[in-house]
């Protein structure tokens, strides 16, 4: 066995062990000197990224099958079932889907760490901050690599604890404790229910290893009621981790209160929840699909409905927010809905002829959207951090005019906003196109809702751009652009988005297709190096940009034929506001961000009043929503 082979075999364990070692060494390094701590942390993230890149390349180039199995504390092949069938060892499996998620997490963690170097400079207790950051990275990576259900629970809880401690990191804000308490209570209760479900599976089959459990679950002539109940619990708990409505209540609180780079990483942590959801449906319950088909289809419909709720409620709640980070947090929920929808459609038609027709494309869209979302949402949270850093406030109504000096941040913001709204040719459009076209075939109404949500997303980002970057300058704000390392973090994510916008087919072929193959076990491709095939048509960003360029040239030609040198005079030089006064008390009239969509919210007040009322902030009610939705999902799983 060559060095490379043994390296690949050990890599999954190293990817958890190195962040842990970096995390635990950080306080000691910090005692020596703070610059040593900085070097140590940067070195740590570089090594983790390098190991992940090598492992990801190895796994993804192999087409997505399980390429690296690591058994803790044992030699190769020692995954022995003891007599009686109990497997005592924890093992890590890395296939296309895990490698895909791992790559994403390391890229976002890298950007966040670089950005943190100057963003967090003014705070004390930074050794704890970086310790928790690496702990969170280790937990997220562990969650996507593990092949053991109990180990999954352990990483789930470590991730929650790290997230909560980081949410409460800025102790000067009382709200940060509030967000942390809510998220902690929510995820602890969910984690305990998850442990209960794992206990049921263990009691039933005597295994914790996912591969062995999946063989046992379909091993009867028909599904057991207990197994259906367990699937209901798993779906609800992991949907909670992903932040799906109606179990999302604590998510915006924690997202909006955590420091910006941590929020960017929390997005990938929530996607680890999505990963676990897909894994438990496809791998745990999909191994004996002839037996479990009906249950998997029901789970698919549950996931589709959770996805629609998340998309719609998320975006409509985002539209009325005043706090810039809270607004983006609701968008994170809304975009999670797309991923649930795409992969849920794949689940709902799994193992039927429709799966090959449109289900696989929907899954590619959903998983591609995970990738795009982590990048552009990470970028957007970082720009929100930059805006707050300079504006000194998070209230959209109080900021304005930042675009003149923070034009670089504004450009990064526009890149992120266009991508999240699915405007061609950005990467968000490529994945949403796959979802639109396949979901439309699944159910036209759901497809229409997906498009409407994109429209509303664009509307609310217009509001943010208008409030933060345009309008008159607020005198109290700090001047100038944000520090260089913050720009570097944003530039890293922004340039990755631009490159992948131009090459959607390449990303789908090299990253997404292996992931879908690994989940479903059905080979297929949805892209070549430049073009993306949706099953119905194709999409090529280069062709579209060429068309844009031609249109631009034609437009400039037409413009050059016009009269030159005319300047507007008299009434024509003034702004026109439909006859309303343009100045109030000698100041130019401005419309604040929250009044921008006044008409829309007024018209929909019948929807908004109960929905805003449901987000009451009362923890007991939130727990009730969690328990109630869990009971409903379990009932649906058993009786439908």
């Amino acid at each position, binding site marked *: 066995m060559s060095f490379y082979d043994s390296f690949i075999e050990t890599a999954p364990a190293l990817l958890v062990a190195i962040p842990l070692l970096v995390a635990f060494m950080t306080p000691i390094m910090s005692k020596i000197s703070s610059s040593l701590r900085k070097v140590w942390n940067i070195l740590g993230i570089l090594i983790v990224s390098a190991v992940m890149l090598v492992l990801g390349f190895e796994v993804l180039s192999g087409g997505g099958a399980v390429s690296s199995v690591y058994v803790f504390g044992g030699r190769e092949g020692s995954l022995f079932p003891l007599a009686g*069938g109990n497997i005592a060892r924890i093992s890590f499996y890395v296939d296309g889907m895990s490698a895909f998620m791992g790559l994403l997490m390391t890229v976002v963690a890298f950007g966040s760490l670089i950005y943190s170097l100057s963003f967090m400079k003014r705070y004390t207790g930074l050794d704890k901050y970086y310790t928790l950051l690496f702990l969170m990275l280790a937990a997220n990576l562990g969650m996507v690599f593990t092949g053991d259900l109990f180990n999954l629970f*352990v990483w789930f809880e470590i991730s929650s604890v790290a997230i909560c401690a980081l949410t409460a990191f800025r102790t000067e804000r009382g709200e940060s404790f509030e967000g942390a308490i809510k998220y902690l209570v929510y995820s602890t*209760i969910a984690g305990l229910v998850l*442990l*209960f479900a794992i206990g049921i599976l263990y*009691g039933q089959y005597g295994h914790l290893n996912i591969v062995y459990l999946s063989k046992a679950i379909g091993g009867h002539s028909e599904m057991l009621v207990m197994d259906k109940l367990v699937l209901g619990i798993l779906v609800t708990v992991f949907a909670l981790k992903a932040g799906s409505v109606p179990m999302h209540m604590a998510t915006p609180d924690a997202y909006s*209160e955590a420091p910006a780079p941590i929020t960017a990483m929390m997005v990938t942590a929530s996607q680890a929840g999505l990963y676990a959801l897909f894994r438990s449906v496809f791998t745990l319950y999909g191994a004996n699909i002839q037996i479990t088909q009906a249950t998997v289809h029901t789970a698919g419909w549950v996931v589709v409905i959770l996805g629609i709720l998340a998309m719609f409620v998320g975006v409509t709640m985002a539209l009325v927010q005043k706090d810039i980070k809270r607004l983006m947090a609701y968008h994170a929920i809304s975009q999670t809905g797309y991923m649930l929808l795409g992969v849920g459609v794949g689940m709902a038609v799994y193992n039927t002829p429709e799966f090959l027709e449109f289900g696989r494309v929907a899954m590619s869209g959903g998983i591609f959207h995970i990738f795009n979302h982590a990048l552009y949402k990470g970028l957007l949270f970082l720009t929100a951090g930059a805006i707050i850093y300079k504006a000194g406030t998070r209230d959209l109504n109080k900021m304005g005019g930042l675009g003149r000096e923070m034009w670089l941040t504004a450009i990064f913001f526009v890149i992120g906003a266009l991508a999240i709204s699915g405007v061609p040719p950005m990467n968000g459009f490529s994945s949403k196109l796959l979802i639109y076209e396949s979901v439309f075939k699944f159910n036209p109404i759901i497809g229409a809702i997906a498009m409407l949500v994109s429209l509303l997303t664009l509307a609310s980002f217009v509001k943010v751009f208008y409030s933060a970057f345009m309008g008159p300058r607020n005198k109290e704000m700090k001047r100038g652009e944000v520090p260089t390392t913050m720009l570097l973090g944003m530039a890293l994510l922004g340039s990755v988005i631009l490159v992948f916008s131009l090459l959607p087919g390449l990303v789908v072929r090299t990253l997404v297709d292996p992931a879908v193959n690994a989940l479903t076990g059905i080979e297929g491709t949805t892209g070549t190096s430049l073009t993306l095939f949706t099953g119905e048509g194709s999409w090529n960003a280069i062709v579209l940009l060429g068309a844009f360029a031609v249109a631009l040239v034609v437009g400039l030609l037409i413009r050059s034929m016009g009269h030159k040198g005319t300047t507007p005079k008299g009434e024509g030089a003034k702004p026109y506001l439909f006859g309303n006064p343009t100045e109030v008390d000698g100041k130019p009239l401005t419309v604040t961000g929250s009044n921008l969509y006044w008409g829309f919210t007024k018209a929909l007040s019948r929807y908004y009043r109960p929905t805003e009322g449901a987000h009451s*902030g009362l923890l*007991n009610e939130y727990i*009730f929503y969690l328990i109630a939705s869990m009971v409903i999902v379990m009932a649906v799983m058993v009786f439908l």
Partner: protein
Amino acid sequence: MMGELPYLAVVALIGIGLYITLFKKNLIKLAMGITLIESGVNLFLISLAFRAGDEMAAPVFTLQLLGDKTYSLPTPHALTLTSIVIGVATTALLLAFIMQVHRKHGITTTEDLRRLKG
């Protein structure tokens, strides 16, 4: 019947815990409710460990010398221990947060913990 008693205790513990988390507004009581649910789940795992039978699965024969074939699986014990450790961490964190909001803002109930809403 005796074999089912632990499971009844599990149901009772989780039920009381859920009742507290749903209906009690004091934050410390909320933390207690969560701890009760946790104890219930841990008891459930431990109860799963006791099996009667001859399957040899790396068992811990606590009573073998007395001729009793009841044995205890080691895995659930390891699981329970891990979940207790995690429970200690989350409870400590939760209590620290509750103390902070009480000390800094005088908040003791979920009613007052409602600045983040909408």
